[in-house]
């Protein structure tokens, strides 16, 4: 299991590829991998967005991300989990978050991946600030899951 914050852009598929090559001990065990990638859009609430800043609470953010991954791993008997979340300044089309889980069967993989995203969105201390042509604005709440 790995949980990580990143201050610079990351490539979710490349990260997954590298992470999977280290999973030798799981070869043949997992039948299901569920993956979610959140990406910055250039358009939100009827306005073009040119840049986004992701603020977090150093210490508490890592703690909650780790707890979310550990709780899901226990609850759904996952074989492995990977969470990477950006902080700092993002451009449109930059990946924001990657959540990947590995399990024997698909029901657990789907349920755990989705639950982790909902938990992350409601509990992990991150705040989005968008730069638009009309100036910057804090995003007040997430879209419903």
């Amino acid at each position, binding site marked *: 299991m790995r949980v990580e914050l990143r201050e610079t852009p990351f490539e979710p598929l490349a990260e997954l590829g590298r992470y999977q090559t280290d999973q030798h001990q799981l070869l043949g065990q997992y039948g299901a991998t569920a993956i979610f990638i959140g990406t910055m859009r250039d358009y939100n609430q009827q306005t073009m967005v040119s840049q986004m800043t992701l603020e977090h609470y150093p210490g508490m953010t890592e703690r909650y991300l780790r707890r979310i991954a550990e709780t899901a791993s226990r609850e759904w008997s996952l074989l492995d989990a990977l969470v990477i979340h950006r902080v700092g300044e993002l451009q449109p089309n930059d990946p*924001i*978050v990657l959540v990947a889980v590995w399990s024997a069967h698909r029901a657990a993989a789907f349920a755990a991946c989705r639950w982790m995203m909902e938990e992350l*969105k409601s*509990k*992990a201390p991150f*705040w989005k600030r968008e730069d638009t042509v009309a100036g910057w604005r*804090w995003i*007040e709440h997430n879209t419903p899951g």
Partner: protein
Amino acid sequence: MSIQVKYFASLRDRLGRAEDRFSAAEGTTIAELWAALWPEIPLPPNTLTAVNMEYASLQQPISDGDEVAFFPPVTGG
């Protein structure tokens, strides 16, 4: 007792500061801490609060050395 206070995101912008150090009486609740710090600013309704990086209710009493954080709803992911 000495309390470290942190503000984040839009709340920090609104208050114009990211941190406070405050001396409070033992057993002070988070709600009382806010009222003592910002007597003229009611705590915005959706504000979340944490003590030592764990979510906490406004009624939770705080202890010496605690780190108390106030912040708006989270919007990551």
